């Protein structure tokens, strides 16, 4: 009998174009997503070398990082941002790459629109010049971020030079308690592994608490896998996956659909497949999470306190913690719930999907954002925005005092006009709390959408479980 293989092994094996004697592999890339920030130099490289895009139809491009989230009819005010977006449009036209323009209803964050369009499919390899490409692993696709030189390599050859990753499995048993979301699972996992814990690995998430997640929740988990240093996250495709994909514009059409699903059913890891590393967690032990520092691993349950660096033996770790706390202007021992906030950001490729917005709407209906807080909601795509408006969620948000905006990356990294001012503190549903990430001197606390809503209403970090009672 053949050796049992993991989901990762199966995708890897089926994408092998060539293997050199030293183990270096050439793997085929099925799907390539492109955005304006990490692609200009790649297209320029092609031009200089007189190369073409090998398979334009396997590529999908969209501007997201630089787009304004207010009225777009006047274009982009910032000149450099505008040039970058125009450069993408021109490059796509010159090289025949499908392009979703800023004024197209399908426009949105690259990792939201790939799945939405059915561009993301199980068993495929998907890359993008963006670390959060790991998001697409939720579909059982091997999806990872690459640098601009590799973007150029994929455009020219539809392949990548790689070495196989190690296999890690994280099994989450049991069921999530009320108020605990996919975001809390992944934050708790990163807290456990550390930001370098997954280095060199592809992490497969499994167990009942994972299988129980919607596609949106699975995308949230895989999205942040990169924050644990892993190359990619993976979740085996199942009925939930197929139901999400069926009928999407770029998903296989009737006639081919059945064959595709039959193939996708063969992808999950074989019984008895082995992993280089195994980690187990019980969902029942996890509380809503919140970060206190400047690395996603700096996480505590909402009922917790700011940790004390004095209790840490490792000198470098202690120094890093002290620096984090100084940057965050926080004191050891403070209850997380006593931390006041100025801004709330709900959106990003981590939590900018329709389910996230529904979760927020369900909590804030009939309530008001605290006077001291500016709270913005940025849908992940034009289609998410339309869907939310059809369901009347925008009215709930506006009535509660939220600022409802146009889709894009927005204050996740503050490349457009949306940003924190120095010293401002934000409860954010995005994925990175690095120094300056949301604006120079800005302080970020990563939370779930429900926790962000609770913070908006309370004016400080608050426990979503108390709000929903």
């Amino acid at each position, binding site marked *: 009998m053949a050796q049992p293989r993991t989901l990762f092994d199966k995708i890897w094996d*089926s994408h092998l*174009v*060539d293997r*050199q004697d*030293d183990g270096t592999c*050439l793997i*085929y890339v*099925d799907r390539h997503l492109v955005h304006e*920030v*990490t692609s*200009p*130099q790649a297209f320029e490289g092609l031009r200089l*070398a007189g*190369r073409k895009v090998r398979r334009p*139809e396997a590529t999908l491009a969209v501007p997201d990082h630089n787009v304004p989230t207010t009225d777009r009819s006047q274009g982009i005010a910032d000149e*450099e*941002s505008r*040039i*970058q977006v125009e*450069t993408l449009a021109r490059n796509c036209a010159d090289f025949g790459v499908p392009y979703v323009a800023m004024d197209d209803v399908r426009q949105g964050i690259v990792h939201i629109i790939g799945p939405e369009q059915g561009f993301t499919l199980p*068993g495929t390899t998907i890359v993008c010049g*963006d*670390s959060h490409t790991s998001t697409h692993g939720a579909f059982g696709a091997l999806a990872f*971020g*690459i*640098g*601009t*030189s*590799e973007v*150029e*390599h994929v455009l*020219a*050859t*539809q392949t990548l*030079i790689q*070495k196989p990753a190690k296999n890690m499995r994280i099994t989450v048993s049991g069921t999530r308690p009320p108020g605990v979301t996919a975001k809390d699972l992944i934050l708790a996992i990163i807290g456990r592994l550390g*930001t*370098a814990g997954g*280095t*060199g690995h592809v992490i497969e998430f499994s167990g009942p608490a994972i299988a129980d997640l919607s596609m949106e929740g699975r995308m949230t988990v895989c999205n942040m896998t990169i924050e644990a*240093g892993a*190359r990619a996250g993976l979740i085996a495709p199942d009925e939930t996956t197929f139901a999400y994909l069926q009928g999407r514009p770029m998903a296989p059409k009737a006639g*081919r*659909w059945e*064959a*595709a699903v039959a*193939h996708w059913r063969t992808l999950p890891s074989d019984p008895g497949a082995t992993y280089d590393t195994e980690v187990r967690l019980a969902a029942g032990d996890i509380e809503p999470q919140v970060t206190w520092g400047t*690395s996603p691993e700096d996480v505590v349950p909402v009922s917790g306190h700011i940790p004390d660096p004095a209790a840490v033996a490792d000198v*470098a770790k202690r120094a*890093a913690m002290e620096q984090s706390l100084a940057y965050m202007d926080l004191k050891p021992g403070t209850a997380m719930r006593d931390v006041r906030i100025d801004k709330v950001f709900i959106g990003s490729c981590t939590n900018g999907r329709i389910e996230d917005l529904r979760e927020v709407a369900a909590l804030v209906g009939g309530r008001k954002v605290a006077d001291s807080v500016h709270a913005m909601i940025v849908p992940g795509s034009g289609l998410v925005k339309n869907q939310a408006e059809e369901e009347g969620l925008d009215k709930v948000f506006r009535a509660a005092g939220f600022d409802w905006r146009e889709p894009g990356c927005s204050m996740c*990294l*503050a*490349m457009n006009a949306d940003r924190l001012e*120095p010293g401002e503190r934000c409860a954010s549903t995005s994925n*990175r709390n*690095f*120094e*300056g*990430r949301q604006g*120079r001197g800005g302080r970020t606390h990563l939370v779930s959408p429900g926790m962000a809503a609770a913070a908006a209403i309370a004016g400080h970090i608050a426990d979503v479980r108390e709000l929903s009672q």
Partner: protein
Amino acid sequence: MEKFTKLSGVAAPLPLVNVDTDKIIPKQFLKTIKRTGLAKGLFYEMRFDESGKPKPNFVLDQPAYKNAEILVAGENFGCGSSREHAPWALLDAGIRCIVAPSFADIFYNNCFKNGILPIVLPKEQVDLLMDDAQRGANAVVTVDLEKQEISGPDGDTLRFEIDAFRKHCLLNGLDDIGLTQQKAEKIEAYEARRQSAEPWLSA
């Protein structure tokens, strides 16, 4: 890509863990459509205050380290975003080699595409080099890629490991795309196989 063979240069100490790519080059410098000229944004928030005035103490701005070509850093260097602007900025500032106990995967990869050699050494050995690097202009370190050796100012030599293929490409300044295009027949054969096995993947 420029070849990397042997380098003797000043090593600058940056004893921080988890130096993320947002820190190496913040977002406002990502709006460029070029690969060059990014040195001005390197470690920007550590070097300049809010009004854009230089801060006094950043290591690469000290006279002794102005011409540093090697950076010695803490664990998990280059974590976070995939932005290749990070190695571009380092290169633009003259850094050709980074030594750390560990690197984030994407950043590590990106270095090789730009003729930068990232060297992983056990933490104790990085600590020794960090001490050497504290010696200012006397912190001259020699890196020999062919021999896979790095030696400090006192001549003590450490061996480092590196993937054979990557070493070969760096030593010869090879262009990956050109190499892969030599395998065009294999790619075509693969595409034909795949088209019959999973026809739904093409439109």
